[in-house]
């Protein structure tokens, strides 16, 4: 059955032109963003695209991901069938059945037939899932159901057409189309006229839905069908929390206060989001009732771009602010709720970078507006004046040692710089971890030195809070000091110092070998430098809590677990959310220094999870996590469970 090409050709041409025009209009909007190089390391990019876009590695890692994989591959395979279908509508002579030999044609239609059934099944599952157990509240939108119904209709029309053609005896390869053949039996006994009508209606339904679908895409969240594959190609290759430096010269503006202050890739991200809700589900702020929802951050950026984009392209000024209370603006409270834990980044199947955008907007608020939660004023002043978050006199640094003699770092004389960090230097609980570390290093005969009074804060919280100006100043001072002293190997006990020294300072031309204490202790154990007495350990069941900056941001998951296993003779037990799915303690991203006024407390949420296994000890690898877990335990009035740093566990077990 073929329609009249004279009717279909102009329709197809119009649909194609409108589609091209729509795509151009939408995608050209990303051009209002700033430039950014996302084309370096081509082989790595192609590999990433293959793995994550075509093999959907991240998509399949969570519930219903397999279902999506089926729909995706059905789309790709049926793209051939659909192209054939459209071309055939214009040039009936060009149909594959007339061109291909039967030996090729038959397997091809067999594949189309089976794949169409798979797609239909997957779509039905998706529809049922969305109706019965939607991925998040508010996911039952007309748009979502509409798109799924359209895909379903395409498949039904495909079967309708082929079943009718088989019944008419017009399909040469009927035996190679088991599904259509089975359906054609339903049409048995119908007259040729009825069958012709079924075929006609099916054909036009298929064509109509296909062309409508095509033209609807650029205007819907299903634009991800077009954007997600390139988005995987353009994904960030750097550690996502190491964001570009800013140049502080007069006349510059800082951070993202309007949509054109984002980069083109930031804007492209917003087109790649299909609002699957995985980021929202992983986000500690969103899951504890805070105003931040990474999915909606992306949505608002897209709405803002659509509202301002054309204006900006014509050289105008944006009318909708990117930070504010309007639709298409992100509320400051949402921005300040982010713990920069990176759960959204790890959850997104197509590598949208939600958290770095939040930092860019914080940079604007802090540096251009000086507008931030009032608790931060003290923090910023303390950092600038005294180079530590508590505002304690710098001369007090190094007093953690008590009366003990600790060697000052001196290149040539001491191998490692032990960078104690602000918490390890000033926080009374963390000072015990510092002492545990020195005990371990001394037991292992490690040659190390400290900077003592000369040690300065690394500036982590400042950078995550968007005070790039101060961070820049502190980073320069630290880098200069490290270079002057000839520091090359550093041991840290705070994952925030670790990531800052290792990743952020690289932007200042400083390449250090920075070893987090978990890995350092693991290597000491591997070299047989530590003698442990397992029987000395009485921590009971130990549950391990991943630090975001050690885990998600730097991929250190196994070292602390291995150390616990060796130190205690038993592997730690795991919380339900662990490793890259771990749940933040609530203190990252500068949240350590802010009050938590909104929603449930993040640390309570995590402590409750930790207590499910009734552990004797919660083991942490970060001073912030330790504070948050201890505070949470106090609130849960759990007397039995203790929080210990991994270094304390090891130091206790030293024979």
């Amino acid at each position: 059955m073929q329609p009249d090409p004279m009717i279909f050709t102009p329709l197809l041409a119009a649909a194609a032109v409108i589609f091209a025009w729509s795509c151009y209009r939408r995608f050209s909007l990303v051009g209002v963003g700033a430039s950014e190089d996302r084309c370096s390391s081509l082989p790595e990019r192609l590999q990433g695209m293959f793995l994550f876009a075509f093999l959907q590695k991240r998509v399949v890692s969570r519930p219903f991901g397999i279902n999506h994989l089926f729909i995706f591959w059905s789309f790709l395979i049926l793209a051939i069938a659909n192209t054939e279908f459209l071309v055939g509508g214009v040039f009936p002579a060009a149909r594959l059945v007339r061109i291909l030999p039967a030996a090729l044609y038959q397997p091809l239609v067999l594949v189309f037939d089976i794949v169409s059934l798979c797609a239909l099944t997957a779509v039905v599952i998706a529809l049922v899932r969305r109706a019965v157990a939607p991925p998040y509240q508010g996911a039952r939108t007309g748009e979502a159901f509409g798109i799924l119904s359209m895909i379903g209709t395409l498949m039904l029309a495909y079967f309708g057409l082929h079943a009718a053609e088989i019944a008419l005896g017009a399909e040469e390869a009927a035996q190679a189309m088991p599904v259509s053949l089975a359906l054609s039996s339903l049409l048995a006994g119908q007259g040729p006229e009825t069958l012709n009508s079924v075929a006609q209606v099916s054909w036009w339904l298929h064509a109509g839905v296909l062309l409508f679908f095509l033209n609807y895409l650029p205007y819907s969240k299903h634009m991800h069908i077009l954007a997600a594959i390139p988005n995987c190609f353009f994904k960030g290759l750097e550690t996502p929390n190491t964001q570009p430096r800013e140049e502080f010269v007069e006349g510059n503006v800082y951070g993202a206060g309007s949509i054109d202050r984002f980069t083109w890739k930031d804007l492209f991200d917003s087109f790649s989001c299909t609002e699957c809700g995985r980021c929202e589900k992983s986000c500690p702020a969103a899951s504890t009732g805070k105003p931040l929802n990474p999915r909606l951050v992306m949505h608002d950026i897209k709405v803002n771009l659509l509202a301002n984009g054309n204006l900006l392209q014509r050289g105008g000024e944006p009318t909708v602010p990117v930070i504010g209370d309007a639709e298409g603006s992100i509320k400051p409270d949402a921005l300040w709720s982010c713990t920069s834990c990176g759960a959204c980044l790890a959850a997104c199947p197509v590598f949208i970078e939600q958290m770095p955008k939040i930092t860019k907007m914080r940079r604007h608020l802090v540096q251009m507006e000086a507008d931030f939660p009032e608790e931060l004023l003290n923090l910023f002043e303390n950092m600038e004046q005294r180079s530590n978050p508590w505002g304690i006199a710098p001369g007090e640094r190094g007093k953690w040692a008590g009366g003990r003699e600790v060697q000052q770092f001196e290149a040539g004389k001491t191998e490692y710089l032990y960078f104690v960090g602000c918490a390890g230097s000033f926080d009374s609980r963390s000072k015990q971890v510092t002492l545990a570390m020195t005990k371990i290093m001394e037991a292992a005969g490690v040659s190390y030195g400290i900077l003592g009074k000369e040690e300065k804060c690394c500036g982590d919280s400042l950078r995550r809070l968007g005070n790039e100006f101060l961070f820049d100043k502190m980073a320069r001072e630290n880098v200069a000091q490290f270079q002057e002293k000839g520091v090359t190997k550093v041991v840290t006990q705070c994952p925030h110092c670790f990531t800052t020294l290792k990743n952020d300072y690289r932007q200042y031309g400083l390449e250090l070998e920075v070893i987090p204490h978990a890995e350092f202790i693991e290597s000491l154990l591997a070299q047989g430098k530590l003698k442990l007495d397992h029987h000395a350990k009485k921590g009971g069941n130990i549950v391990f809590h991943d630090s975001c900056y050690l885990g998600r941001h730097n991929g250190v998951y196994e070292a602390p677990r291995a150390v616990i296993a060796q130190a205690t003779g038993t592997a730690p037990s795991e919380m339900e959310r662990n490793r890259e799915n771990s749940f933040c303690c609530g203190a990252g991203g500068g949240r350590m220094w802010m009050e938590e006024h909104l929603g449930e407390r993040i640390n309570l949420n995590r402590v409750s999870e930790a207590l499910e296994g009734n552990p004797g000890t919660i083991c942490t690898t970060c001073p912030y996590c330790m504070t948050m877990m201890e505070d949470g335990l106090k609130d849960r009035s759990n007397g039995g469970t203790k929080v210990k740093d991994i270094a304390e566990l090891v130091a206790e077990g030293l024979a």
Partner: protein
Amino acid sequence: MYVVACIKQVPDTTQVQIDPVTNTLVRDGIPFIVNPYDTHALEESLRMKARYGFKAAALSMGPPNTEATLRKALALGVDEAILCSDRAFGGADTLSTSNVLAAAIRKLAQEDEVGIVFCGKQTIDGDTAQVGPGIAIRLGFSQLTLVDRIEHLDFLTKKIRVRRKLEGRYEIVEAKLPAMITVVRELNRPRYPTVPMRLKAAKAEVKVWDNKELQLDPNSVGLKGSPTWVSRIFSPQRAAGEIIGDGMGDPAGTARLLLEKLVASDMLAV
């Protein structure tokens, strides 16, 4: 009309130690900060600027490195920064300091009328709380000290009404302009500089006025104009502290011990 904030650069006293031999402050490597009370004076002058269109000026006396403190004021948004600096001004007590600052305000008033002078209630290094009142007396300004709220400012009648925070009570006072107001911390929350303002301030002019400009009698400024002599500075000896109980292991028991001790020593009554 000018609103003037008098600010002082002080050593960060949390970090200051006294040299036991010379009885002087050990200032080596100690960073300087803006006297914390003065940051509130500065903030209020900037709010006045925004609200009433005053020109805001920040004024300080000190050695040349005080410029850094004035740049901070520029970064926060004052229109002019003036540093009174001269070797002759060195070693000043509160009397000769107020002589210099009053002269500077008089000189500023030649350009435009000075409506209000804000000072912090005291500095954290000297803690005298005398310079503000000294300026008021020398200029014949109304003197409003320990202010925690500006109630009303009336340009027509040239009157200002403020609330003073005194021990155990408040006092609402009305006075004529021009006025010198010393402020307490509760008055406002100081702002934070934006980066563009910091960068602009780094290049802005800090006017330096020496005694050639102020034309003061050399015997009324600096060490010569200071009747106060510091004969000795020392830290009072305190009895050594005592660690009670085992706070980490037995917090409840330790708290009980502490309570008993406080009651026994008559510091708490139950």
